[in-house]
């Protein structure tokens, strides 16, 4: 059974703009899926439905076969969403406090919150910054902090919305390595990006969104050749193969 599934997912904004239309997608546990598409193609709107931040106009999201509306808190625990611009959304004054926010919402005992925070920070290598303000971190470390905040909820699925935007080369490498470690640890990864050249080699599946619709879905080698039609830059140069598409050496 797929871990997460959308059925006819449609979202139309109050002003009539179509966000997404008739999206049917099944993702199995342990997959590494990349969702690509031009700006405004609906990929972010889609991601916000997967943990119930947006309510669909039509259709539904199933998590382990159950509609997420049945237990939203459970959905938000299982589906961790790392936002595009996480440093605009930090709520803690210190790195540790930022990570503690999630487990505190779950009303866990203080000692358990502490140990979860320590473990999550260790996973992303931010332990030594725990008493500092999130603002002092570099771009790459800020993303890592956002990931730690999500990890503290012990999610099964991690969605990363444009995780490479605005990062320099070392930052991209840092985040890419982190994502691969999470995937290796058993998390299902959903990565939203339009920069296929940085990461496509690691994914098992490529999904393309275009004007709110799902237009292609399959093995990266099969899908990648048609992406320019949908406003995504063709990442392959002449003679290059998909397995070379990574910023990791």
């Amino acid at each position, binding site marked *: 059974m797929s871990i997460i599934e959308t059925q006819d997912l449609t979202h139309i904004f*109050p002003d009539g703009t179509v966000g997404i239309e008739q999206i049917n997608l099944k993702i199995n546990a342990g997959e590494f899926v990349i969702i690509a598409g031009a700006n405004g193609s609906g990929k972010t709107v889609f991601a916000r439905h997967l943990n119930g931040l947006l309510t669909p106009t039509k259709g539904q999201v199933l998590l382990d076969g159950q509609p997420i*509306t049945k237990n939203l808190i459970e959905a938000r625990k299982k589906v961790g969403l790392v936002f595009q611009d996480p440093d605009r959304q930090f709520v803690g004054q210190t790195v540790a406090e930022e990570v503690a926010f999630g487990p505190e919402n779950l009303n866990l005992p203080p000692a358990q919150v502490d140990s979860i925070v320590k473990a999550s920070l260790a996973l992303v290598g931010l332990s030594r910054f725990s008493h500092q303000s999130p603002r002092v971190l570099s771009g790459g470390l800020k993303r890592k902090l956002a990931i730690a905040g999500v990890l503290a909820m012990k999610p099964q699925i991690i969605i990363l919305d444009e995780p490479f935007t605005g990062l320099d080369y070392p930052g991209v490498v840092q985040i890419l390595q982190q994502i691969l470690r999470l995937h290796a640890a058993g998390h299902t990864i959903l990565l939203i990006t339009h920069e296929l050249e940085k990461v496509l080699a690691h994914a098992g599946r490529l999904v393309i969104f275009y004007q709110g619709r799902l237009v292609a879905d399959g093995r990266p080698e099969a899908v990648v050749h048609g992406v320019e039609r949908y406003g995504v830059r063709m990442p392959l140069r002449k003679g290059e193969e998909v397995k070379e598409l990574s910023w990791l050496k």
Partner: protein
Amino acid sequence: MGQAKPFKSLPTLKEAQTGVDLRMTVNVALFTALIIIGGYISIPLPVGPVPIVLADFFVMVTGLFLGWKGGLTAVALYLFLGLLGLPVFAGGASGLAVLFGPTGGFLFGYLLLVGAVGLPANKEKLSLGKALTALTVGNLLLYSVGVPWLKAVLQCGWGAAMAAGLVPFIPGTVIKIIVAVALARVLRPRFQPGY
């Protein structure tokens, strides 16, 4: 996505389920932060010797955007934090010493200011006349507490109190009222007040 829903005010699913108005909580925190930094930033003006401090300006803006309920909460939180000794008042001052010092009347007066401004701002539509009246009344209330307080603490005459606590601020206050109204007219239609 960003351009599709600026300043969305639909209730989120969570709100609908639990009745917790998270948006108002966040708004109060944001506007409290604005009032606090308003005490630190100033815009020099070509008129008058006193630079414009933005704390009272942001109190007016808070009233216009959050209405009296959210506005009073934000200002009360501001005063409470200062009372606890956190450096939130103008220039990084804090504590009982400031609240009960010469300028304390103006700080307590912020409650009256935000209440008066926020009262008509609760409605969805805010006419120009109503906004201007509310801001003028609010500022009159502010100074009617602030100046006598100053006089009482300094134990000086009315003339000195007026010269120190009213006259230099008049041009700045007029400017702030005009700017606050202009901002509300541009931004309020896109950002519905919470109450």
